[in-house]
């Protein structure tokens, strides 16, 4: 006769493996002086256009590269390569998010030379990417003015996990009857104190402020081997 079941304590983080790799990546970026910036958004937020513009604007004076998470059916990497920056695609297949191990694998053996900025475009999805630390210094959550002011309230977890909210397609505000105050209020409700940047990659409005923000972040970033804090 088998004895009664008993409880044993385990206490292990399910995403431990991801977090360990993310921490190693973060340390590596710091040692190499790279500011790693990830982007999350819904499909159709204008993320690729925004990133293409960013790469193009940074490239004359900075060493930049981008990693792009694409579902099997997409090819944002090709569009981004038009900027002239090194771009590498990570095909996630049916997986709806990037994980730290994919970043690590993509970086290994990819000769980009020395970099100032590395951008990581996550798969277009506002749910799944929130759980996975990618070792980034900054996580941008993108939202276009066409998506509605209540989006932060529908996806509080991803907004709360991000460092900066970037509002895109500001050239369309009049056309879609965009309520700027309501959006600001909703973002502040789910992430008090969050930095909000508003821009249009199409007209270029607000892009300089965004670049200034990147440079400021690069100057203020913690140095290598300092107490690196994980996202979780």
């Amino acid at each position: 006769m088998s004895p009664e079941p008993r409880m044993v304590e385990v206490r292990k983080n399910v995403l431990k493996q991801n977090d360990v790799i993310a921490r190693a990546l973060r340390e590596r970026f710091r040692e190499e002086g790279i500011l790693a910036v990830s982007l999350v958004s819904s499909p159709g937020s204008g993320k690729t256009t925004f990133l293409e513009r960013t790469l193009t604007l940074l490239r004359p004076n900075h060493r930049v590269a981008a990693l792009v998470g694409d579902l099997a059916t997409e090819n944002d990497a090709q569009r981004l390569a038009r900027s002239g920056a090194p771009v590498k695609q990570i095909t996630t297949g049916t997986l709806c998010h990037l994980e730290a191990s994919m970043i690590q694998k993509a970086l290994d053996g990819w000769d980009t030379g020395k970099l100032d900025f590395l951008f990581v475009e996550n798969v277009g999805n506002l749910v799944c990417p929130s759980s996975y630390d990618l070792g980034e210094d900054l996580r941008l959550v993108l939202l276009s003015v066409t998506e509605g002011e209540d989006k932060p309230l529908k996806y509080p977890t991803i907004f709360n996990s991000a460092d900066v909210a970037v509002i895109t397609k500001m050239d369309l505000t009049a056309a879609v009857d965009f309520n700027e105050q309501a959006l600001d209020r909703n973002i502040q409700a789910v992430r008090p104190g969050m930095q909000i940047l508003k821009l249009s990659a199409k007209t270029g409005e607000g892009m300089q402020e965004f670049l200034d923000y990147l440079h400021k972040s690069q100057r203020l970033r913690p140095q290598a081997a300092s107490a690196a804090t994980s996202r979780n």
Partner: protein
Amino acid sequence: MHELSIAMSIVEMAQEEAGLRGNVQIQAVHLRLGLLAGVVKDALLSSYEMACETTPLEGSRLIIEEIPVEIYCSNCKAQRPVHSIQYFCCAECGTPSAEVTRGKELEVFALEIRE
């Protein structure tokens, strides 16, 4: 949906733990799930069943304890429950705070085993 890959990690982790204890039989896995972990409870429960198929954990249960979100309130100078997941302010005094102290857990807490 990423719950299936998370469920598979849970099954893998539980099997490892069972192995360390001399291949005991696992009857249930107790999981602590923070409301800010980015994982949907119901999706995880059904994914768990799928992830267990054809493994020694087939037929085992996943028992989820949901962990509420807490923040550090600079006014109360204490850890406090959040007003709601859509409104990150102290439930007691209303001071906004982005300093989450609890609610991101995704942790295999314990196993119910039979030797």
